[in-house]
């Protein structure tokens, strides 16, 4: 029996040395001159994650002693943790809901709402699909609304001159903010969607599916289209509203930014706990760093930056510690112009 204990101890000490053996690397590179130290705890939307990750990585170069951690519990999960004061910053791919807002006030938490980027939703088909030139919001609704389930199953049911072939649908999974947003923008009600389509939380699965199926149609984050341009065909969308661009409009950085690619572009947010930012200078400086560098880091993370004017408004909003959400009395962010609501 002694031998077992001994060999156990040997195995254990091998593990132990592997921890301490790499001691020097544990310490952050001593580059920055800042004296800030502390923790910044962030959680929320996986859509916003790449931007926050980029920010945290750059922030670390200047402030090596600040420990920034990021989780990806999803927008709703992030807000739940935010209400419990388990995190300082919540990332969100949609604005805070009324129920979540009242939960924060019940927990006596004040928050500062900061838009940080735009994301576009791409509607795509297979490159071999020669018949679809554009889609209207009306047609998209006809395809995706709950009533379409089992009924709209062929391409020629959408437009008669399209082929008499089955339509294969690919879309976001029910837990994702993308699903919430798409259904709200197209069907008019969040989470209202037909269920008989290939759903995945992982957009790469959707890309794979659509790129190998001639009769496929699907939607996902614009970044996934940009990375797979050669395998997919992007469809222009017409919202029949002439005030934000006439006719069908193709999703691009430009059209998302200037608000003409409607209704499928959305703002992304971070929500900062006001008390944390008042008491913890690391959080204050992290958020300032976030806004100041958003323009370049958002592009790095393959999203679309807000305009300079809006970033200035966001910055003042944080400086003045303006609490509460500007979206509570609005039905949705669909079609909202950030310049106007932030003023």
């Amino acid at each position, binding site marked *: 029996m002694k031998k077992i204990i001994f060999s156990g101890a040997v195995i254990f000490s091998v*593990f132990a040395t592997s921890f301490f053996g790499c001691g020097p690397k544990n310490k952050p590179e001593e580059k920055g001159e800042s004296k800030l130290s502390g923790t910044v705890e962030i959680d929320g939307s996986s859509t916003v*994650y790449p931007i926050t990750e980029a920010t945290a990585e750059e922030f670390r170069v200047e402030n090596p002693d600040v*420990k920034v*951690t*990021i*989780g*990806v519990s999803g927008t709703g999960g992030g807000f739940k943790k935010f209400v419990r004061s*388990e995190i300082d910053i919540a990332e969100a791919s949609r604005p805070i809901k009324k129920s979540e807002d009242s939960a924060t006030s019940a927990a006596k938490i004040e928050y500062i709402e900061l838009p940080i980027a735009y994301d576009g939703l791409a509607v795509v088909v297979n490159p071999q699909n020669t018949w679809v030139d554009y889609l209207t919001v009306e047609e998209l609704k006809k395809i995706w609304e709950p009533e379409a389930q089992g009924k709209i199953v062929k391409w020629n049911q959408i437009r008669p001159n399209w082929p008499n072939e089955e339509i294969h649908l690919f879309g976001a999974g029910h837990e994702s903010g993308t699903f919430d947003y798409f259904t709200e923008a197209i069907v008019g009600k969040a989470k209202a969607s037909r269920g008989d389509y290939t759903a995945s939380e992982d957009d790469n699965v959707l890309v794979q599916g659509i790129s190998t199926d001639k009769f496929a149609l699907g939607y996902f984050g614009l970044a996934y289209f940009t990375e797979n341009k050669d395998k997919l065909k992007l469809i222009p969308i017409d919202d029949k509203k002439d005030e934000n661009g006439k006719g069908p409009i193709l999703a691009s950085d430009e059209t998302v930014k200037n608000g003409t690619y409607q209704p499928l572009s959305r703002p992304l947010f971070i929500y900062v706990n006001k008390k944390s930012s008042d008491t913890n200078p690391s959080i204050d400086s992290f958020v300032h760093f976030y806004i100041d560098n958003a323009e370049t880091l958002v592009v790095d993370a393959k999203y679309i930056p807000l305009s300079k004017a809006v970033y200035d408004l966001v910055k003042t909003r944080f400086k003045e510690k303006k609490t509460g959400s500007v979206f509570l009395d609005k039905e949705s962010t669909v079609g909202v112009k950030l310049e106007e609501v932030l003023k």
Partner: protein
Amino acid sequence: MGKKGKGKIKKRLKYFSNTRVYEYQDQAFKYFGLCCTLIGVVVLMLLLGDVLYRGLSRLDWDFIMGLPSRRAAKAGIYTAWVGTLWIMVLTAVIAFPIGISAGLYLEEYNKKSRLSNIIEINIANLAGVPSIIYGLLGLELFARALKLGESVLTGALTLSLLILPIIIVSTREALKAVPYSIREGSYALGASKWQTIWYQVLPAAVSGIFTGVILSLSRAIGETAPLIVIGALTFVPFVPESVMDSFTVLPIQIFNWVSRPQKEFSENAAAAIIILLSITFIMNGIAVYIRHKWQKKVKW
């Protein structure tokens, strides 16, 4: 030739034709079994080949010692594999003594009763509960009620719960395999119950116990779902220095990278999978070694 002789020959012929059938059955099952084995092996080879092909070129010292980054080429898994090691060691420290002791008690001390039956059935059932359920339990119990937060300790406690039933069951199986005559011999020489267990039964069963225990630990380090539920993080640019620090593990990092739009990240994921597989293989190697070593020692 009389009637009797004919009957004998007929019987013999029947016997022969039957053996032929049996032989065919035997051969058929042999090849069927071979096919089944090959399916497993071929699929594993394809997976391994694919992962190695994609990930091997990405694997280098900088990748292993690098911190997380948004640039796929710069990103490393240092904090992830250190997190995995922390979780592994801590889970082992918590789960092994409890699991093995419980197994010992149930097998050697426990008297058959209705209560013990219920306990046994429960343990067997617990081994089949989906891991995410354990994650939810860990979140409520360890992270929130006991206020341990999203720490390494919460993760290790949750995974310990997950593998406890497996350890208990495999410990009991190993103890059952020790012939009862060994115990009786020991008692006959005047040894107490504890002496019998410590000097006779445990050394005889140890190879089986350790095999089960280490395989259960290999399972634990591959788990993602319960750790995500208890709030293990994705971006952690520092390694845990105490059991109360936040952490990330390899499976979570792989999961994150696979779902990124940039293709370079899937290379990273493949490389991280190679590391995770290596850790699992090393663990299984240790299990095989221990079994081999201790089997030789047992001489009755």
